[in-house]
């Protein structure tokens, strides 16, 4: 019986390994190939890695991806906690409704959302029109659209649902009586948050943070269509190298460097969160 069960699990394991590692292996191989006349030629060349190593642009963009991922994560955490905790206090039916509302951004396609943001934030857009109508500003605030601000705002908005859902699921499992116990023992609400709720929701925080980090660090459409001249991303560069430039070795090397950097940062984030007072006890047991 055990033999058979192991037997059954084998294809799944193979599929997982193949699905994760095979593309990586291909990228590694490609990064050492050469391109001749739009043809990828197997070789063992360090040309791509050499170019990558000295390219300030490439490393700047990788750094930018990390920064974008981290800031979006921080913003969504800061906004996500109050929302998630408020959700836990709703009645069962209100919760269902709230989750549907929360997920609304995800029902619309990304492109639709992007153009909607333009309507909201544009020079002749909703926000500027209202502010001008109220006499609060004379000239439209151009910085609302096509600026780093826009990227931050929209990435936060797009990723907030993932963070809220992750924290919420975790927060639902925190016994309310623990919070009362903390209050009873002299904790103000803010103390109860940092000493009880936060460590006990670390699993959700970690899941949410890693998801949001990965999604926002790798985001390319939103920056390029809403970020204006500051919208260049490592992802778009990889895309450009694979496509327009047909420099698959460099594209592979850059993709691998980006992946490795994001992986390292994500690991560091996970490690840091595990060090939150007592979080290890919660996760270790779960």
């Amino acid at each position, binding site marked *: 019986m055990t033999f058979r069960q192991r037997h059954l699990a084998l294809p799944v394991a193979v599929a997982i390994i193949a699905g994760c590692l095979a593309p990586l292996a291909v990228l590694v191989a490609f990064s050492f190939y050469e391109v001749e006349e739009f043809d990828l030629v197997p070789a063992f060349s360090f040309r791509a890695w050499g170019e990558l190593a000295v390219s300030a642009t490439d490393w700047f963009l990788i750094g930018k991806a990390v920064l974008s991922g981290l800031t979006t994560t921080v913003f969504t955490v800061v906004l996500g906690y109050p929302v998630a905790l408020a959700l836990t206090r709703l009645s069962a039916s209100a919760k269902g409704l709230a989750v549907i509302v929360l997920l609304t951004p995800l029902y619309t396609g990304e492109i639709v959302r992007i153009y909607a943001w333009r309507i909201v934030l544009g020079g002749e857009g909703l926000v500027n029109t209202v502010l001008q109508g109220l006499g609060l500003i004379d000239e439209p605030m151009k910085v609302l659209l096509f600026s780093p601000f826009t990227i931050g705002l929209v990435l936060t908005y797009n990723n907030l649902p993932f963070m809220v859902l992750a924290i919420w699921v975790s927060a639902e499992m925190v*016994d309310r*009586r*623990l919070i*009362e*116990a*903390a*209050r*009873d*023992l*002299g*904790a*103000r609400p803010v*103390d109860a948050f940092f*000493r*009880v709720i936060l*460590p*006990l929701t670390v699993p959700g925080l970690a899941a949410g943070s890693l998801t949001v980090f990965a999604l926002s660090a790798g985001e390319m459409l939103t920056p390029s269509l809403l970020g204006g001249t500051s919208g260049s991303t490592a992802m778009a560069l990889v895309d450009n190298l694979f496509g327009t430039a047909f420099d698959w070795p460099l594209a592979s090397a850059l993709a691998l460097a980006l992946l490795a950097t994001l992986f390292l940062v994500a690991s560091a984030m996970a490690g840091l969160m595990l060090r939150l*007072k*007592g*979080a290890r*006890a*919660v996760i270790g*047991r779960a």
Partner: protein
Amino acid sequence: MVVESRMEKRTEPALSPLLLAMRGIVKTFGRSRAVDGIDLDVPERAFLTLLGPSGCGKTTVLRMIAGFERPDAGEIRLDNTPLADVPPERRPVNTVFQSYALFPHLTVHDNVAFSLKLRGGVSDIGVRVRRALDAVHMADFGDRYPHQLSGGQQQRVAVARSIIAEPRLLLLDEPLSALDRKMRGHLQIELKALQRRLGIAFVYVTHDQEEAFALSDIVVVMNKGRIAQKADPETIYSRPADSFVADFIGNSTLVEGRIQARHGDRATIETALGTITAPAAEGLAVGDAAMLVIRPELLSMRGEGSATFTGSVGHSVFQGERSMVGAEVGGLALRFPAEAPLSVGTSVALWLDADRSFITRIAA
């Protein structure tokens, strides 16, 4: 109401200053009245028990004292200061929760140190944690996490955690209900000793009357959000304020009747089993419907003169050193202890120690 206040005077330990006073407290959840107008005083250093069936409002009372619920009406004062606008963290009251509510992510040591660390500037945290853990015999468990402890150990940690900040008042919500009988008995003794040693007032919730009697200076019996009786255990046992209390306490048989005569403390009640004269609750007057409370130990198979009741054995349960027998008398089952089991159908004659039985009012 009138009766209660008279009772209070009689039963409260003399000269104890008042710590907590609740007046006219009402709490409604949706359409259900969890607490329906109660007055409650807790003297300093008292061990007061709230006793009552499930759902009668005990936990709700504790939660209002701790500050987790706000009364719809009435006032709570501690040291004569209204608590209405004081949040839980600023009340000198700590709680041992029904489920212990230990922080799963903190070690025993950190659980116990929780309130001191919050306070900040406490230099002798280590010493005090150790002392608190010593007090509950858990000094060796500081490094464990709650999930590595037995139920009884968790309960003790919960107690240590709530006494370390030296509250004026400790609230305990059925802290022993999850434990086996032996462990419960053991911890009851420890809790009582601890309370004496610390000199802190305890408000203790249970629905186990034996536990209430074993521990308390004052027992408050609650029924449907109201206080049915508030007195020392002995009074509750021997002079239940009404048929609800009498029924809830012990294995008494309640026999309904009507007062025929009243002489001072005593009254004569006419029941289906005959006419009996016994001590009676104050305020019962001739013609009132009332209830004769017959506790098992007041019935004996031997006695002088003619037997009070005669009947036949309906059932007999062996309980070790004695048996509990139910005798069919005039359509009622009278429970009494016998030295040996009796066979069903045997006819028995029973003598009642009427002077120790009690005639009480019928609960609303």
